[in-house]
């Protein structure tokens, strides 16, 4: 611990390196460059992050015998495709994947659209009740969604929507967080003069929104899309309640693998690995944006 502190702080202060101690420096780093210890720790974090996923690939490509070994195997086996076939036989994987993509996409489009509109109004337009209504938005952010599942379930059943993916989509069409996030972003990003001059040129409100606010909002919309998509994709409790086993989302379908009477763990982990691939692809493509989104949200929030 103290070694690391020295190292970290050494960098921050950019103190001159201690002369005559090259070995120490190589390990602990000097003021400017972190040493082996830092990279060793980072490598350990990486292994800790990746190992459980790798474990699901290792076991998912073997049989249950892999679990009985005293020392866990490190490399995948040759049983992957058999297990994949087993997964496809047990759960409607493709239906579930299609449902998850459809649900998450619709929710994302809806949340981002309505959040941008409302966030823009709160950030840049003057109207009576602006402040009070914004406080209401912030207050609702703290309300846990699970509180409302019972009435929502009753509503869905009354209208006969249980079993339909619409029942999963409707409760999440808007989020208070989205409005808050867009407002925080737009309030700094659009200069008031820009809106004023658009109005001077005779643009009406919606044109002003379209030509001034929307282009400026794009980076934040991308980040909000990523987070909303993740949220919709990972949701479990609500889809579990309103969807049935024939028409599930990926998450509820996966849970069926685990809940069946005879649990074949290698098949369960094949399913977990398969279900992680779509988000892993998204992560490789948009990981940078995800990171900058998290880090921006921190400073602003």
């Amino acid at each position: 611990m103290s070694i690391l502190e020295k190292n970290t702080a050494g960098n921050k202060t950019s103190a001159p390196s201690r002369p005559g101690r090259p070995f120490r420096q190589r390990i602990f780093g000097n003021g400017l460059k972190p040493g082996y210890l830092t990279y060793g720790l980072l490598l350990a974090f990486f292994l800790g992050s990746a190992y459980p996923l790798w474990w699901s690939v290792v076991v998912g490509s073997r049989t249950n015998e892999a679990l009985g070994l005293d020392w866990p195997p490190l490399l995948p086996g040759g049983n992957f495709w058999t297990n994949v076939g087993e997964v496809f036989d047990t759960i409607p994987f493709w239906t579930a994947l299609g449902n998850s993509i459809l649900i998450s996409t619709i929710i994302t489009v809806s949340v981002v659209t309505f959040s941008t509109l409302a966030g823009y109004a709160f950030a840049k337009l003057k109207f009576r009740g602006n402040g009070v209504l914004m406080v209401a938005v912030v207050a609702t952010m703290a309300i846990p969604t699970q509180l409302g599942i019972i009435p929502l379930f009753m509503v869905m059943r009354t209208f006969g929507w249980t079993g339909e993916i619409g029942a999963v989509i409707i409760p999440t069409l808007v989020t208070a967080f989205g409005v808050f996030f867009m407002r925080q972003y737009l309030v700094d990003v659009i200069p008031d003069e820009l809106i004023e001059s658009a109005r001077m040129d005779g643009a009406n409100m919606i044109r002003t929104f379209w030509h001034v606010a929307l282009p400026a909002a794009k980076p934040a919309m991308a980040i909000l899309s990523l987070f909303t998509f993740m949220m919709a994709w990972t949701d479990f409790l609500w889809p579990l309640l309103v969807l049935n086993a024939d028409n599930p989302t990926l998450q509820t379908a996966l849970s069926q693998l685990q809940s069946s009477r005879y649990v074949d763990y290698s098949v369960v982990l094949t399913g977990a690995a398969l279900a992680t691939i779509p988000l892993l692809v998204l992560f490789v493509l948009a990981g940078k944006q995800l990171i900058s989104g998290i880090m921006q949200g921190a400073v602003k929030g």
Partner: protein
Amino acid sequence: MDCENVMTVTIKRPAPAAAPPKAKSPLRYRLSSWDLKFSPYLYISPFFLLFALVGLFPLVYTFWVSLHDWHLLKGQGEFIGLGNFATVLQDRFFWNSLGNTMSIFLLSAIPQLIGALFIAAVLDQNLRAKTFWRMSVLLPYVVTPVAVAMIFTNMFGEEQGLINNVLGNFGIDPVNWRTDTLPSHIAIATMVNWRWTGYNALILLAAMQAVPRDIYESAAIDGAGAFRRFFSITLPSIRPTMIFVIITSTIGGLQIFAEPRLFDPTDPGGPQRNFQTTVLYLWEMGFQRNNFGKASAIAWLLFLLIVIIGIVNFSISKRIASADSKKPTNRAQRRAEGKRK
């Protein structure tokens, strides 16, 4: 911007000039002023309408349901006032679930915060391949809670689990990860921690990077050691962000469902309900035992608990903060905060 003023200016401006503009018929003028006045409400109304429907209504209606005998299939029964609340508060399974929730929450929130601070401090250096290391700590976040629960349930298996196998090689007896209370809490907290520590580390890293480096330099010149600098400069400077992390992890931590639900697929919350969380109990009450009235009462009690813990969290972190700011780094800290805004 004051829209009204802009409007009048636009209309009046051509007046001194030669010809009054032919456009701006009264109707058009009226439309334009309506546009100005009502557009903001139009833009925020989808959010508020939908939110009223799917957020506020369920909240209020949950309370209404909780005041009745209410069965999943038979529907609304007698009005019994606070009867459901009274029964729930005397229900030992409810208190059991609260205890489990708190225990799992503490086992996840505290190590998570410390771990995230540590990781953030390591990442807050002049690193090579910065993005790669940041992505590597965020990797678990893209694994969904259901998949996390499945992978870790397997690793924490009692008879043939990775962890017990490895422990066995060192002569340690297998741990009853599922049937014993504390081990099961540790297992579930591990799932939560694995997924969220890196995410929180990035949030804290962002805050650390906003601290101006010259503060550290002058502190070092004044003779402050590395520990001292971390605790007197870094921690107070990132205080608002730490509060943010604590509050979000509280709201999240009190609501975990997928992990305990899937850790034992047959009994909700383990054979002895030894890791049944409150949300899991709510689910069992509503959708296994079909008692909507009692389940709604549980939902409201959980909500109150979240609010109370939120307030406690906030006041504790505030007190810590005010204690910190009496230290000599006060000025530096304020400068750091000013810069961030």
